[in-house]
């Protein structure tokens, strides 16, 4: 039986003859074009016949919002990037004509723009993207209109229980560093955005520069053509990146504890947070810290088995020890079923911390965790867009993608003793911030 007719599926071809990058985990060949102005473009031969994912990664996010009253601006600016230029007044119309899937997102350390298009549009998309990165133009009324959409976005995310909670966690844990505020920003700052037109122009001038933007293209393309196009379209981009002076976070001297009241209905959510190291592909302690989150608080941890499965005292337990460009929070979060049990659950978490400071992790659990991290990476490489996206943390933290293989090589070297050392170094009481969200007025 023939289940599906073949209308235009193109048989994929093996990846091209470009030089391989050595015996790393990354299963694709890639080449880089580096221009005199500092702009870098990576081209990953990922197959995906007839399709490319075109991803522009700006190494600026809410971390760079150093001025008071400007929280949320990187994200707002991301919206303005869709408002057109003199050459292409309607970005939307041009990309719609290509049938491009396109969007963008902003987080602590980055603003990422992407289009998934047919390979035939490589030149057009490069023209369009380089043009808006260099020549963005919008009027003040358009700017004010877009601020309304951003406030709408704030309303639907920041007012959810977890949106509310994480705003409080960050402002409790950080005193000076810009990780103190969330990417969506404070409501008052979001409401003030319509008045920030001039600031938005300076934002573009300072951060949207070739030294601060990296292009990653994954899929099906001719590298020679692509290289020439990068020269043609990005070569004239003037340098001028001004790195913000992101304040360093002073060392925390004592644990902090706070309870916040959510005005909707929720079970108590307990978060225990510590200050972690900065992201690194080569520092074993950084990798050991990421491993620690999984082995101590992940879905295969003893604590998960005890609290979630056996005793059913919590609805979930997460250990998010993903690292960021600057030292950020190592977050343990759990939803406690009986509000009277919150303190005891906190005690369980702290006892687990103590245990991992004292005992080296089980060798099999460590091996399974390394396997988990590798397959998690590999399982994510299914579409051109996913392949390009899998490079985001490398680009944002290092400025290029070469660190991907280093990262997994370093992971291989992490020992049980390293995991214990990471627990001793980072899960320390003086850097701890505990924030509990409860329902206003009680159950």
């Amino acid at each position, binding site marked *: 039986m023939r289940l599906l007719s073949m209308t235009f599926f193109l048989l994929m071809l093996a990846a091209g003859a470009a030089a*391989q990058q050595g015996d790393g985990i990354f299963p694709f060949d890639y080449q880089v074009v580096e221009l005199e102005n500092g702009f870098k473009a990576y081209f990953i031969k990922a197959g995906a016949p007839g399709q490319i994912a075109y991803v522009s990664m700006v190494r600026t996010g809410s971390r760079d919002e150093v001025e008071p009253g400007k929280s949320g601006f990187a994200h707002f600016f991301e919206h303005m990037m869709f408002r057109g230029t003199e050459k292409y007044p309607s970005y939307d119309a041009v990309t719609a004509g290509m049938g491009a899937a396109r969007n963008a997102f902003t987080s602590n350390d980055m603003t990422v723009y992407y289009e998934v298009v047919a390979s035939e549009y490589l030149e057009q998309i490069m023209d369009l993207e380089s043009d808006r990165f260099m020549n963005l133009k919008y009027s003040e*009324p358009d700017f004010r209109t877009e601020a309304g959409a951003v406030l709408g976005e704030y309303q639907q995310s920041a007012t959810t229980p977890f949106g509310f909670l994480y705003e409080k966690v960050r402002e409790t844990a950080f005193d000076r560093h810009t990780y103190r505020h969330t990417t969506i920003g404070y409501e008052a700052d979001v409401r003030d955005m319509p008045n920030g037109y001039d600031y938005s122009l300076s934002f573009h001038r300072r951060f949207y520069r070739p030294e601060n933007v990296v292009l990653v293209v994954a899929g099906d393309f001719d590298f020679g053509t692509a290289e020439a196009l990068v020269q043609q379209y990005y070569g004239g981009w003037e340098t001028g990146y001004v790195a913000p002076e992101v304040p360093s976070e002073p060392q925390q001297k004592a644990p902090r504890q706070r309870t916040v009241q959510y005005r909707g209905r929720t079970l108590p959510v307990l978060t225990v947070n510590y200050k972690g190291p900065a992201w690194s592909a080569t520092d074993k302690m950084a990798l050991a810290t990421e491993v620690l989150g999984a082995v101590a608080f992940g879905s295969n941890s003893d604590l998960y088995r005890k609290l979630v499965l056996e005793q059913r005292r919590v609805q979930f337990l997460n250990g998010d020890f993903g690292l960021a460009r600057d030292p950020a929070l190592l977050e343990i979060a759990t939803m406690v079923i009986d509000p009277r049990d919150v303190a005891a659950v906190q005690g369980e978490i702290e006892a687990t911390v103590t245990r991992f400071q004292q005992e080296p992790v089980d060798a099999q659990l460590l091996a399974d965790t390394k396997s988990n991290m590798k397959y998690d990476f590999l399982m994510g490489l299914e579409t*051109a867009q996913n392949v390009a996206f899998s490079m985001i943390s490398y680009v944002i933290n290092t400025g290029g993608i070469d660190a991907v293989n280093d990262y997994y090589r370093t992971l291989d070297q992490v020992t049980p003793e390293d995991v214990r050392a990471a627990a001793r170094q980072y899960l320390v009481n003086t850097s701890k911030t505990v924030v509990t969200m409860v329902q206003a007025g009680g159950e």
Partner: protein
Amino acid sequence: MKRLMALFVGLTVLTGCEQVPEGTVSLREPDSPFIAFNVWVKTGSQNDPAGKEGLAALTANLLSDGSTTEDSYDQILAKLYPMATGYGYNVDKEMTVFRGRVHLDNLEGYYTLFSNSILKPAFDEEDFERVKTQTLNYLERSRRYSRDEELGKELLFWMAYRGTPYEHPEEGYVESVRSIMLDDIRQFYADHYVSNNIVIGLGGGFDATLLSRVRADFDALPAGEITPVPAPEPRMPNGVEVLIVEKPTDASAISFGFPTELVRGHDDFWPMVAMNSWFGEHRESFSHLYQVIRETRGMNYGDYSYIEAYPRGYTTQVPPTNVARRSHLFEIWIRPISLTAPGNLHDRTLFATRAAWRELKLLVDNGMTEETLGETQQFLKNYVLNWGATGSRRLGYAMDDQFYGLGSNGYLASIRPGIEALTLDQVNAAIKRHLQYDNMYLVFITADAEAMKQKLLSGAATRITYTGEKPAELLAEDQEVAAFPIPVSEDKITIIGIDEVFERGM
């Protein structure tokens, strides 16, 4: 030398002319390092017994997140962990699917765990208590207090399907889920998880013999007789019927729509796909409603329309698979409206509602134009490639093709030629046949519901302000929008409190 990977793309797959066993769907892509599983049990929330609404969902949940007779649930998690994968379920009105995905390196170990979860459930009492508690927490708290826009959509479906097997939300009501016992789950499993009620789908780089093996494993389940559930016959709203949910909130959620007769395979299906893409493509600035309400007026984050069910649209940019149904709504989703400029929240809420409704009227009265249809055809030509981007999604579509009886003319294979061949007359005739603007179910979730009700009843114009200057033509159009009639009588407006929502059958 390391193995280099190359990705697939496209709307259809390399099934070729392979013979496949009865009751299976095969999308083999021999060079792919991934294998996708999709086990479709032909039962859904429509099969829930009265008073036990949510049973189909809780059954699938227990299978997916519980122990088997071979492994306790914590052992399962420990075995899945090094593979960095898992499996999950989705229960919709008519379909239950169990989906999994694994890297080829881990296929054998994974398949054992995945198949055991469906074939050898332990029905463990502690697992049951855990998943039931989690479900009740969702029903009592998260559903009511985290995403008003999603709740508004669920309420729209509830209004439209009252008195039909589609009436209740898939997860059930608070009271009905409380009443579900482990024996109910055992019985539901025995009645519905029978070999002749299950279709096996495999996608990706599996060996051709695997499919027969999986089919044979599932044929070990007993056969059984399933009483068919009659297709729902939703009632068309009689004029405008309104539900207002009262909730302390700074923003309003808005959904409205009505039932249609359109399903995949209908002659008007592709014309209506084109119409809908232009009018309200999901989370796309291409959407006309998005342009009118968000882009031009900055009132919210986005505005879209649908001709098929699209649950949890806030989480995804591509259409969900395995929510195939015999009946669908035409639905408009206006994302939360708040005071983004000075004024009154209810005025803004009603203005956005009126703006979308007026655009619907213009569409029905005037149809699309050669220009807008041409733009839509050009847009969809490549945009639809994203809908089949992964093996799991391609497989999901292929399962839905079986549901709709599309045979060799599957959705992904047909959409491009289907859209390309459309004429303006076809599209506009289909619009006239399937869309209208006089009869509407309308849901608001907002603060001070009584004030909202009075404002609606008054018929007063609801003008809005802007934080920036706007062109004169736009302001003139706003006058029309603000006064666009929503004729409604008091007996057709219902108000309920947020904590009553889905507490029990309403």
